[in-house]
């Protein structure tokens, strides 16, 4: 049953633009970063590029693999969290916006199975995007000949990206909950944006390790120096956020009237 529902959820994405738009939007990250690296690698070039060159010079970016990998992790961590929210909102919300929720919910399938299948689709979609961005980043790093790029360093970047992407994913069920509650796209995307901002604010306080949306900013170093490891408490908070989000989304779909 689950396999059939999961396959059906994948089929629903056929000929839709959303996977390509999300992939394309995150893949611009390594390209812009590469442009900055290319500019700052030569002071004369920075002058040629005018305002963009000045901005690149002032950003403090160094043209090497360590710097490139660090900024890329930040882009995937923060930009990716928002993008992932869009993906989750799309996968759940389109059933309401396209009027197909009543079709889906009158099938002889337990509603929790749809939730699980959709969350797996979100995970797969997110994994493909992250791996594509990683492949692009390595290609760009090699193409630019960034100092410090080695197979070990490239492997470390993959590990960091997967860690940050995995933690971001643990927050996705909360977005799916807001989506099935609000039955649209706007509220979940607004929720994710709000949480991201709040996470960055709380990230500057002593409570950062306990607030789920502050944990990615801690890891990627957007609120302080990047953390090497998370405290056990943060892992528990993340696990509880994920489990709570999944359970609440299932509960909501199982108990809410469909008046669409």
């Amino acid at each position, binding site marked *: 049953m689950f396999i059939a529902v999961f396959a059906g959820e994948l089929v629903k994405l056929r000929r839709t633009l959303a996977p390509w738009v999300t992939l394309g939007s995150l893949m611009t990250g390594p390209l812009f970063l590469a442009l900055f690296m290319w500019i700052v690698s030569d002071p004369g070039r920075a002058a040629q590029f005018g305002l963009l060159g000045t901005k690149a010079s002032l950003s403090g970016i160094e043209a090497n693999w360590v710097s490139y990998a660090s900024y890329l992790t930040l882009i995937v961590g923060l930009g990716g969290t928002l993008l992932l929210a869009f993906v989750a909102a799309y996968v759940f919300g389109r059933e309401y916006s396209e009027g*197909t929720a009543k*079709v889906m919910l009158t099938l002889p*399938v337990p509603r929790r199975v749809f939730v699980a299948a959709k969350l797996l689709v979100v995970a797969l979609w997110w994994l493909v995007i992250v791996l594509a961005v990683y492949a692009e980043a390595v290609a760009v790093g090699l193409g630019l000949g960034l100092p410090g790029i080695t197979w070990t360093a490239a492997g470390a970047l993959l590990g960091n990206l997967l860690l940050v992407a995995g933690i971001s994913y643990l927050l996705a069920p909360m977005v799916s909950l807001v989506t099935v509650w609000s039955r649209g796209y706007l509220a979940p995307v607004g929720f994710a944006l709000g949480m991201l901002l709040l996470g960055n604010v709380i990230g500057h306080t002593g409570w950062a390790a306990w607030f789920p949306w502050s944990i990615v900013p801690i890891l990627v170093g957007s609120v302080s120096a990047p953390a090497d490891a998370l405290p056990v408490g943060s892992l528990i908070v993340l696990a509880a956020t994920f489990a709570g989000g999944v359970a609440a989304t299932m509960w909501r779909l*199982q*108990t809410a009237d469909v008046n669409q």
Partner: protein
Amino acid sequence: MSAAAVVTTAGLTKRYGNVTAVADLDLEVRPGEIYAFLGRNGAGKTTTIRMLLGLIRPDAGEVRVFGHQVRLDQPSWLGRVGSLVETATAYPNLTVRENLELQRRLTGAPAVAVGQVIEQLGLGAAADRRAGQLSLGNKQRLALARALVHSPELLVLDEPANGLDPAGIVEIRELLRSLADDQGTTVFISSHILVEVAHLADRIGIVHNGRLVEELDRAALVAAARAFSAEQLTEQQRADALLTLELERYFLARTDGSVQ
């Protein structure tokens, strides 16, 4: 209440704030019959159908389908039901065939069912077109095809003639009649057009302001139809006004219990 009834409702009530959409509704739909639920827009037809399918919860009373008490997210009997609720919807990015294939897989119907239902509903020419590009009539046919693809024992159709041209209406009427006569399919159909259901239904339940005003069988309907008056009008507006007035008087008479 007949033990063999396919659908029964007892004291079924649904309120939205101060508005009572369905009030104390007692219904019984027998196996193999076509039961038409006739009423004006806003009479409570769609709300009743949503409660029959477990899409919304009643505030009071109960619904039983195949003897099972209907609750939200109890899908065991939904595989025996085909439904069309309110507007015809489909995944717009998928073709007609893909939409039906999705339904077929999740209802466990055999692979040949999709081709059969495409032919049955006259969708052959549109089979490989995206649902989002279909005409209103073909969207309605697709929604009907989806309801039929798994050869359900019970069809619950909300205004199935919406968007169909006169020839299409006759075609669907004949299809439903043959399903009931040849395969013993029970059909519960809602409509606001008396003429449409008079040609099709074995029994008609007339609903007004959420209450079942009267039930008529085909013989009683034919007898009632013998008493009529005819007026020839050339002005559209005057004809509309007269028809509205007659319908109002009819429904008022049934609600009050007094014939005016």
